[in-house]
Every structure is written in structure tokens, then in C-alpha cells.
């Protein structure tokens, strides 16, 4: 908590960077949302990106976006285009594979029709909205009002920065990414709430004579739960990181979102949510008085009896 200004400044800078990224570079949406074709070529050996593009254009694909990708240590390509007819898309893919003498089962082709994309967008937005609202409702019922508001602010902070990361890295947002983010948002919100719970408990019952102001109590509480928070984050992150390192395209989609979301969620629970809560709570008369009295970080010890309330 002594570093609250620095931590909040870091977050503010990150949010500003994220917003700049969102405005300047914009988000890339996967074909699932807008219709189009994605071809995932694997194990393409020494084929270059120009060769791949050339082969696709020769096959009749208009203006495909070709990116290199690595799966399982082997080179491959990820191709996106506007083609919404699976017949055409598959013919183009197999023609390109033939031209580059790649195996006929070395690629996957996903084609989404334009109407379906709108459908997916609608249902993803609905799932996202409903889940966020339900989580917030759950937290509000279960915990104090100020806590739920602060926790939600921290959540928005995570969300904006995550979207910023997606904008800066120009990683495509797919329904899988939305699902992963949503789950991680739930986790991070929960991390925050666990911490708040501890703060609450300590604010009521901690009369050790050392921690008196809300800042001191919040700080003490963070120290109490931080080992736990870090350990649980590590145990969740390790499998996810393995998935990012070893998995193919779909698993990487999930893993990247989870990794970014989880790191931010853990960070924000003590670097954003707790300081904000402490600042807000300190405005309450009771805590303001204690802050005025003990706020300069004094450690003078008074008998416990002096704190009777």
C-alpha cells in the first residue's frame, strides 16, 4: 500500500497505452464474427511466405492474408481471406497444397458464412454480457457495495488493457478468446473479492496495535494472502503457459487470452482494487479520523485498550 501511487500510475499508463492501441491500431476480429475463411497449413517445411501467397493467388484466392505460424516446432502458415463459400475455399486450399506439394491432410479449412458470423457475434456478446452481469450480481449479493464497485473497476481495467494487448499485437479475437477472457475475468474478480474479504475481516477484528488505518490494514491483508494468490496464479498459469508453448492454433487462442487475463487479474487485485478500496474507505469518517491520527506510518505502540470502539 505504500506504493499505491506508483502502482496506480503504472495502471493508468497501461490503460492509456491500451486505449491508444485500440484507437490507432484497432482490433482484429476472427472470421467467426464476420464470415470468411481461415486455412491453417501445418508442417510446410521450407515453403516461403511468398510461395504460399503465390500458390493461393494462382488457385484463385483474392488477396489472402498470410502469416507464418509455428505448431509443435514445425513451420506453418495461417491464411485468412474473405471467401465465404466453403467449396471455393477448399478447392483453393487443396490446389495450393498440391502446387506446393504438401500432403493433402496437412491443413484445416474453416469457412464461416456472413449471416452465421452475425449470429456468432450476437450470441457471444449475449454470453459475455449475461456472464459479467451475473458475476457482478453474485459478488454484490455476497459482499459489500463499495467492494463490488471497486472490484468491477479493477475488472474493467483488466479488460481494457487486455483488449489493448490484442490491439497492439494485432492478434485476432475469436469466440474462443471471448470465452477464455470471460473465464479469467471471473477468476480475477474472485481474487479481488477474496482479498477484500480478508481486509474486511481484519478491519473488524485486527487489534494488534500496529495496523490501524485502512491503508495499513489493507497492506497487512495483502501480505497475508499474497502467497496464496501468487501460488494459485502459478498453478493456473503453468498449464496455460504449457498450452501456449505446445498447443496448436485453437489451444494457443485460449492460452494467450488466459495468460494475459490471469497475469493482469492477479496484478490488479492488489495493485488496483485494494488501493482504490482503501482510498475510498479512508474517506469514511471513522477511517479518516484514524488516518489523521496514525496516517504517517508511525509505529508507536500503544496499549490495546486505547483502541476500544
Amino acid at each position, binding site marked *: 500500500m505504500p506504493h499505491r501511487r506508483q502502482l496506480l500510475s503504472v495502471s493508468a499508463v497501461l490503460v492509456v497505452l491500451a486505449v491508444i492501441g485500440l484507437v490507432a491500431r484497432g482490433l482484429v476480429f476472427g472470421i*467467426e464474427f464476420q464470415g470468411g475463411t481461415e486455412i491453417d497449413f*501445418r508442417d510446410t517445411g521450407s515453403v516461403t511466405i511468398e510461395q504460399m501467397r503465390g500458390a493461393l493467388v494462382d488457385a484463385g484466392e483474392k488477396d489472402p492474408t498470410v502469416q507464418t505460424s509455428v505448431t*509443435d516446432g514445425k513451420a506453418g502458415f495461417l491464411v485468412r481471406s474473405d471467401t*465465404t*463459400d*466453403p*467449396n471455393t*475455399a*477448399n*478447392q483453393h*486450399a*487443396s490446389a495450393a497444397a498440391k502446387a506446393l506439394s504438401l500432403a493433402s*491432410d*496437412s*491443413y*484445416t*479449412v*474453416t*469457412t*464461416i*458464412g456472413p*449471416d*452465421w458470423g452475425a*449470429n456468432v457475434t450476437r450470441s*457471444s456478446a449475449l*454470453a459475455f454480457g449475461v*456472464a459479467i452481469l*451475473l*458475476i457482478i450480481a*453474485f*459478488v454484490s449479493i455476497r459482499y459489500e457495495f463499495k467492494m463490488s464497485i471497486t472490484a468491477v473497476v479493477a475488472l474493467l481495467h483488466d479488460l481494457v488493457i487486455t483488449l489493448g494487448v490484442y490491439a497492439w499485437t494485432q492478434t485476432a479475437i475469436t*469466440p*474462443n478468446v471471448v*470465452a477464455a477472457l*470471460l*473465464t479469467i*475475468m*471471473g*477468476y480475477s*474478480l*474472485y481474487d479481488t*473479492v*477474496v482479498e477484500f474479504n480478508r481486509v474486511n475481516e481484519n478491519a473488524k477484528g485486527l487489534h494488534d496495535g500496529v495496523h490501524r488505518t485502512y491503508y495499513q490494514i489493507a497492506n497487512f491483508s495483502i501480505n497475508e494472502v499474497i*502467497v496464496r494468490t501468487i501460488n*494459485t496464479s502459478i*498453478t*493456473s*498459469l*503453468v*498449464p*496455460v*503457459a504449457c*498450452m501456449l*508453448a*505446445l*498447443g*496448436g492454433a*485453437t*489451444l494457443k487462442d*485460449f492460452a494467450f487470452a488466459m495468460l494475459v487475463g490471469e497475469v493482469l487479474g492477479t496484478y490488479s487485485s492488489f495493485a488496483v482494487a485494494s488501493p482504490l478500496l482503501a482510498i475510498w474507505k479512508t474517506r469514511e469518517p471513522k477511517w479518516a479520523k484514524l488516518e489523521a491520527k496514525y496516517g504517517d506510518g508511525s509505529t508507536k505502540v500503544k496499549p490495546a485498550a486505547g483502541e476500544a470502539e
Partner: protein
Amino acid sequence: MKDGKEPQDGATGIDRWRKSEGKGEGRSKSRPRRKRGHRMGAHVRRYVSTLVVLVVVLGVCVFGFTPLSERITQGLDIRGGVSVIMTAKTSDGGTPSAEQMQEATSIVQQRVNSLGSSETTVQQQGSDSILIQIPGATNADEAIKTIGQTGHLEFVRLDDIGDADALAKLDAGTEDVELKDGTYEAFMDGSHITQVTVAQASNSATGTYAVNIKLDDEGTKDFAEVTKELAPTNGRIAIVLDGVVKSAPAVQSEISTGEVSITGNFSLDDANSLKTVLDSGSLPVTLTYSESRVVGPTLGQDSLTQGITAIIVGVAIVVVYLFVFYRGLGLLTLGSLGVFAVLYLGLLALLSHFGAFALTLPGLAGMVLTTGSAADSSILVLERFREEIRMGRSVKNSSVSGAKHGIMTSLDADAVTLVTAIALFAFAVGPVKGFGLTLALGIACDVVTMFCFKAPALRLLALGTIERHPKFWGVDQDLAEAARRKEEKLGKGGVANA
């Protein structure tokens, strides 16, 4: 007893799952019961009986899910194949009726069957979509083409085709020549066909096939008229499906009976695919592609292997980390993860058996995520347990209230995740549903593991061995901390009294 035996459980993967079963048995005969039975009898009996029941359930699970690759259904993105969702609309763009959908589904089913692959599924999804899955389809191009033939069937005289380019192509024998709207005029459409059959061509000894069509009265009349005009010159009739010429047989003689036989060195496959084209002439709705996924058969298996490797490596690192951090208590986490995994796989196998589950890649991601949170809930319990020891409670009391508080916290976390999982399962469309499902199932298994393994096992251990070997179980520092605090308090108290 456990000190010597259990560290051997540090094997990986399935071995560990199996062994965790054995471990449970070891505990069920746990010594503390005999030693301290007179004091904690009822509790101990409850813990032990919970564990025994659990072991039986785990045994059933292991039996149920072995061998894994057969017992857990794999989704198309893992098995490889073609998966297509088509959305139906009536000709005026409206939503089709339930009857029309049924008819459309069965026609699509026929088309898919004509591809000859086994295990295909054609299901109606929602009110206006049809999901078609062809596992292991080797010729994706053809499969997709066949499924998508949406069926406006027309019969056109070649001399009624105005497009010179198209005619030239037809003469050259090009397949699937496209005719532009307005450049041709049909003399009959597919609605006059009453029956289509495939039979061996009667006038051929080489084993080729013919497609036989029966026409209704009006069709018979039209066809007779046209064939009468065309027969002398062996003029051709183009069979046009959705503007694409599928076949353009030459008329051999006048056909006035309404029974048309199309021959032309067809193999059985050729004939069947032409039959499918003709069948689809009566489709009551138009179908458009909504989603099509084509996965090479080996690629899907690769993805699965990668996913499983990721899980195994991830879990192994987590377990090592937990052993370093919690020492002996890491065994409890290891055991919990083992119990969790066995229950989870058992549940998935059960659902697979009833056709309610198929493992997809998003589902696999959900499994990785819940495995992480299963480890989380162990940490919550262990941290709380050690914290209570530091606060000066006895090991035994700490185990009771630590497990209780830890589980409460985990339940809150699980509730939040469950909300997400259910929202995804209920509202999202497409493969994300699988993620929601495995997430929700994982949470269920985690909750069962907490109550039926973690809590009783920790409490049983706390009755004896943890107190006797605090260093092995990694609680020596917490005990020291408790002692230090006690001393401090005493010292402080002394000052206050003075």
C-alpha cells in the same frame, strides 16, 4: 507408514491416477483410527467411510474410462473430418416450418450417406440449422460439394442454352459448367421427379451403372415431347442443379413412359452422386453454408497429442512446485489432482456413452483450465491450514477449520466460474459450447474432490502423522511461528500487566 510409501506416487500421468486409488485404500486402513479411536471415533469413521466410498467410485471410473481413446468420444476437430453447419431458409427468406426442416434434414442425410462414409451424423440444430459431421472424410472437397447441393433442379435442352462459352465447355466435356441466369430456359424442373433409383446398366456387360428416374404425368408429357424432338439428332439434355450442369446425357430415343434411364459408363459412386443430385430437386428449403470446418485426420490427432502433452507437462511442473513449497502436504495436492482426474475422466466417459459429450479442442482448453483450478483449491485449503497453525491452533483443529474455510473460499471461486460456464453453454453458439461444458463438469468434479477426498484426507493425516513429522509435512516453520507469536504475546501481556 505413509512417510515411506507415498513418495513413490510421484509417477506421472495415468500411473498416478491409478495409484491415487491405491493410496486411498492405504488411508482407509489408517492407523490413527486404532490409536485414537476412543477419542475421535465418530469423526474418523466418517472420514474413513467417505474415503472408502470414494475409492469404490474411483474404481468404477477407472473401469469405465479405460481405454480412454475409445471411451471418450472425440469431436471432429480432433478426429479429423468435415463438419458443416447449414442454415435453411424458405424460398421467400422466411424461417422454415418444423416439417420442412425434418424433410430437409432427411434429404441432407441421404446426400451424406451417398458419400459412403460411416458414422456420419446429420442433426437439426436450433430451429433452422443442420449440423453435418463426417468423421475422417478423406475427400473434403467432394463432401462439401455434395452436402451443399441445395437443389434447384432443372432439365434444359442444350439448344436452349444461349451462352456460347458454356456450350463449348460442355462439348469439351468439362465438369460442372456454370450457366448464368437468363442464358438458358428449362423445359422441366425437379418437382416432377417421383422416384430415383440406381441399377446396373442393362445394356452393358462392363458393370457400369444407370440412374433411373420416374416422372409424374406432367413431367412424362414434357419429357416425351422434348425427347421426340431430340432423338433423331441425339440432342443432349443438361441436368442443371442450381445453375450448374451436373450431367448432359444425349437422348437415344423418344421416352414416353416417364421412365428415364441415364447411362454413361457410371461407376456406382458416379451413379449414386447423380442420384443425390436428382433427389435434392425436391428440397423444400434452400440451404446456405453457415460454418464449415475441414480438419485433416492426422492434424486433429496431433492437436490432441499436443494438448495432452501440455496438460501432463503443466501438471508435472505444478506438482513439483507444490512439493517444493508444501513438502509432504504436496502429496495431498497430488492425491487431489489424481482423484479429480479420475472422476473427471469417468464423468466424461459416462456422458460420451450416452452421446452427450464429444471432446473438442475448446473442451480440451476447458480441461486445462479446470485442472489449474483444481490445484488452486488445494492451495486454498493448505494455505488456510498452515495459517491456522501459525495462529496457534493445534494441528488437529487447524485441519478441521482450515479445510472448512479453504473449501468455503473454493466454493465461492467455483460459483463464479460456474456462472461463466453456464452462460457460455447456454448462449454461445459453435465450438465454444464445448469449453463451457468441460468447465462446468470440471467444477463439479473439483467440488466432489474437495468434500470427499481433500477434507477427510487432511483431517486423517492431521490426527497423527503431521504432528509427529512436522518437517516432512512442511509445517515445522508454521509451528515455530506459532510458538514465537505465543511467546511474544506472553511478553507483551507481561508488560501490560506490569
